[in-house]
């Protein structure tokens, strides 16, 4: 539990959320904007990309516990033959919700957490292009997540949970075969999550294209920025496809349409195509952010620049492109013709090439580096090692004839947990450790971090390694139980034990957060400094935690790894030496005169409206209609809301706030003298460091 014991700069504080006069109420009623930056209400109404990022992360971790608990139930049920821990009906709900939760409510929002927090910082921007929309994305996501998760509880334990598998093949998900509300929750929930992700994708794309600090050309952007950008493009183009599929399904279920009604002549393969046209890009949506994170961590702890930057970027783009041409590899046995199978089989295999380029470049970065195996580095190297296993089994699936033996067995389950857990999740956890000091001003304990890593890694391999064997021995996936004489007992037991080992590792992560925070506070909140890892990206060039306004002034970027090159130069003999102390280069966050977009009530109100519409569609269309009216009202509220709080401090809007352009030239938008006399930083509990605002 090593916490850097720096000089004590501030008195101890409690973690309790300050209940102070955070939001001042002013006479304009709902058309004023809330104000202030502390207290829980300031989080509800925030439009700050960093806070939104943190909320995404927190929500994702919460859902990770939910999805993980579901995984543990799966493993308990399968631990022994003829298991009877949960019945077949519940089991179907559990594994479906596990898959849906992990994919849509854990990995995607975790990636969104990093995208929100880091994208603007890495390109040197003050915020995203549309801060209010950004907040809306989060609340919309949360609405969708809560709606989906509530399906576990409404009407009885797992009575109305989706139970058609995460890819919900028609016609099994039709009303006839799945009469509970489960699939409605699935369709509506994913639809809402889709809106959230789509809005956020547009927002982030515009941010990267348009909000870069001077000199930040595309090929000076960090690889993480690139990977996140590609991810947003994948989302942008993939989400509409599943939107179509989900609409068709909803129409079938709600209004008796015929899209998947075989009796009326429908072909169920339509669903499969639409789902996987979305679904395969989706898996790269899951992995690319982690690839980006690994590309940040490994150079830092190898003390070398990333090997083959341009190739890393290009391979990311190539993966993004190729990801569109392989979807039918999920349908090798479903009866598409042999030509399709051949084409998709071959196209799938070649995705290994750009991915291999990444793996090898990471290894080359480590080659002759000065490797320090801190916790983030452990995770990053863990990704290199574990993802490769999953990738290789992926290539064996791509061999279509043999996939007819593998598909829908635990061999597939092994594959995708290796790439998702061993790739995406490990990467994202590495990201937590790496950027934690940036977001909160202190490091997580290295000792606990490493211990937790090893426990997770070992548990992970014991859980999913044996699944390769189980699959090849013929164990089908999605079976609630298996016969004793099928010979699956041993490795299932091992896998179950492994899963509980993972759970211990996960618990250690949360414990780490707790003790590290406590120790840091006990130590008087020592300042970790802007650049605790001696890193390279612009995000390290400002104080930790990042002040509300990000940078004190715009940075003029003159090359890739600008920050690093400001720190280090070469002497006459070409040796790398320090050019300037970090403290001179990094901003200290003291410029409090940057005007920031005001908080807003409307994003969360809109999120609430969407929740209402969602439940309405599932239970009662009148409620949905009411929700729609509410929603439209809220949209007008959003539009009519002044760009700025008239009473707020500061003068100039540093950038566009909104999509509608309504903020320009608002007659009384440029507020007069600050009524409350506070700027964001003046209100923080700890004027010295500004940490409290973000930590609390």
């Amino acid at each position, binding site marked *: 539990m090593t916490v850097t014991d720096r000089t004590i700069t501030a008195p101890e504080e409690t973690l309790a959320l300050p209940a102070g006069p955070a939001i001042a109420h002013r006479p304009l009623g709902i058309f004023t904007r809330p104000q202030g930056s502390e207290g829980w209400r300031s989080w509800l109404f925030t439009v700050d990309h960093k806070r939104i990022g943190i909320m995404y992360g927190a929500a994702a971790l919460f859902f990770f516990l939910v999805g993980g608990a579901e995984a543990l139930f799966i493993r308990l049920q399968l631990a022994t033959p003829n298991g009877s821990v949960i019945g077949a009906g519940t089991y179907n709900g559990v594994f479906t919700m596990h898959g849906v939760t992990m994919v849509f409510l854990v990995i995607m929002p975790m990636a969104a957490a990093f995208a929100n927090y880091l994208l603007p910082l890495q390109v040197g921007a003050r915020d995203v*292009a549309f801060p209010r929309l950004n907040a809306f994305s989060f609340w919309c996501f949360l609405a969708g997540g809560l709606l989906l998760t509530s399906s576990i509880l409404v009407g009885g334990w797992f009575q109305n949970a989706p139970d058609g598998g995460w890819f919900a093949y028609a016609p099994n998900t039709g009303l006839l075969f799945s009469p509970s509300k489960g699939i409605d929750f699935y369709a509506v929930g994913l639809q809402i999550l889709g809106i959230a992700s789509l809005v956020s994708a547009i927002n982030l794309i515009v941010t990267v294209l348009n909000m870069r600090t001077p000199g930040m050309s595309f090929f000076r952007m960090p690889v993480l920025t690139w990977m996140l950008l590609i991810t947003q493009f994948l989302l942008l183009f993939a*989400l509409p496809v599943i939107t*179509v599929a989900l609409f068709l399904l909803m129409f079938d279920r709600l209004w008796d349409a015929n899209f998947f009604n075989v009796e*009326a002549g429908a072909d169920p393969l339509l669903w499969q195509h639409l789902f996987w046209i979305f679904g395969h890009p989706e898996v790269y949506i899951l992995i690319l952010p982690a690839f980006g994170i690994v590309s940040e961590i490994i150079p830092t702890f190898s003390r070398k620049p990333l090997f083959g930057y341009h190739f890393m970027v290009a391979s990311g783009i190539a993966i993004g492109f190729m990801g569109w041409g392989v979807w039918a590899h999920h349908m090798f046995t479903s009866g598409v013709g042999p030509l399709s199978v051949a084409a998709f089989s071959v196209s799938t295999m070649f995705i290994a090439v750009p991915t291999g380029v990444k793996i090898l470049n990471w290894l080359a970065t480590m080659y002759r580096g000065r490797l320090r195996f801190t916790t983030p580095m452990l995770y990053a190297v863990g990704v290199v090692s574990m993802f490769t296993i999953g990738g290789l089994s992926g290539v064996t699936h791509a061999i279509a004839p043999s996939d007819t033996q593998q598909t829908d067995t635990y061999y597939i389950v092994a594959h995708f947990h290796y790439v998702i857990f061993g790739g995406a999740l490990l990467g994202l956890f590495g990201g937590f450790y790496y950027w934690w000091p940036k977001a909160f001003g202190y490091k997580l304990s290295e000792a606990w971090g490493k211990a937790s890593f090893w426990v997770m890694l070992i548990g992970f391999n014991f859980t999913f390694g044996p699944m390769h064997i189980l699959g090849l021995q013929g164990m089908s996936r999605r079976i609630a139980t298996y016969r004793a004489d099928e010979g699956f007992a041993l490795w299932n037991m091992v896998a179950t034990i492994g899963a509980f080992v993972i759970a211990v590792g996960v618990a250690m992560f949360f414990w780490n957060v707790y003790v590290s925070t406590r120790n840091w506070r006990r130590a008087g909140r020592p300042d970790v400094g802007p650049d605790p890892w001696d890193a390279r990206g612009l995000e390290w060039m400002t104080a930790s935690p990042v002040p509300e306004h990000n940078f004190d002034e*715009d940075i003029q970027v003159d090359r890739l790894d600008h920050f690093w090159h400001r720190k280090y130069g070469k002497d006459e003999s070409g040796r790398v030496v320090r050019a300037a102390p970090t403290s001179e280069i990094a901003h200290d966050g003291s410029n409090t*005169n940057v005007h920031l977009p005001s908080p807003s009530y409307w994003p969360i109100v809109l999120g609430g409206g969407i929740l209402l519409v969602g439940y309405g569609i599932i239970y009662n269309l009148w409620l949905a209609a009411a929700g729609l009216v509410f929603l439209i009202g809220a949209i007008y509220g959003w*539009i009519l809301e002044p760009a700025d709080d008239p009473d707020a401090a*500061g003068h100039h809007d540093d950038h566009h706030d909104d*999509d509608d352009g309504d903020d320009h*030239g608002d007659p009384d938008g440029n507020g007069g003298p600050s009524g409350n006399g506070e700027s964001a930083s003046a209100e923080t509990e700890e004027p010295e460091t500004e940490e409290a605002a973000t930590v609390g």
Partner: protein
Amino acid sequence: MTAEAPAHTPEHHDGEHHTSTGLSNEKLAMWVFLGSECLLFGGLISTYMFNKGRIGPDDVGPNDVFDIPFTSVSSFVLLMSSLTMVFAVSSIARGDLRGNRIWLTTTAALGATFVAGQVYEFTAFYSEGLGFTTNLFGSAFYALTGFHGAHVTIGIVMLMSLLVMSMRGNLGPERAETVEIIGLYWHFVDIVWIVIFTIVYLFPQ
């Protein structure tokens, strides 16, 4: 630093809205969004193309219900609303607020005519025996054209909102871009109909 409010030193770069590409965020966002919409309508159109023939010999099919002259007229109306939309944009760019209002109104009216035509068409089809649930052709047809109709309706609502803003003096030339952006949406909805009209109505069945 102390606990008092820090001094407000003005930022030297003023609140000028400059972006890396020189393009406005809003417009860029709209184009990005339209790129995404291509996949949405593409999916619906393919669903239609895939399903329209999957009906029994005695089922109500396209040839039984389509009234090409009627739809041609309403398609033409929508097409022309694009022209009036362009006028709305160029008038506000010139500072001609009155003209802007006139053209916004015309565009919305043409759009509404189109939607009304669609409503009429739907009821006519329904009375001829083609409901949403009748067969795959029905489901796919109504889903596709209904989605498009919803898009047009949203466009009309946005145009009307612009109009109200204009009446209240909130839509000056400095907001020409807002009109332009909504215009982009409007044109997109129009080009989607260009595709739908050809593929759904005019293709030999």
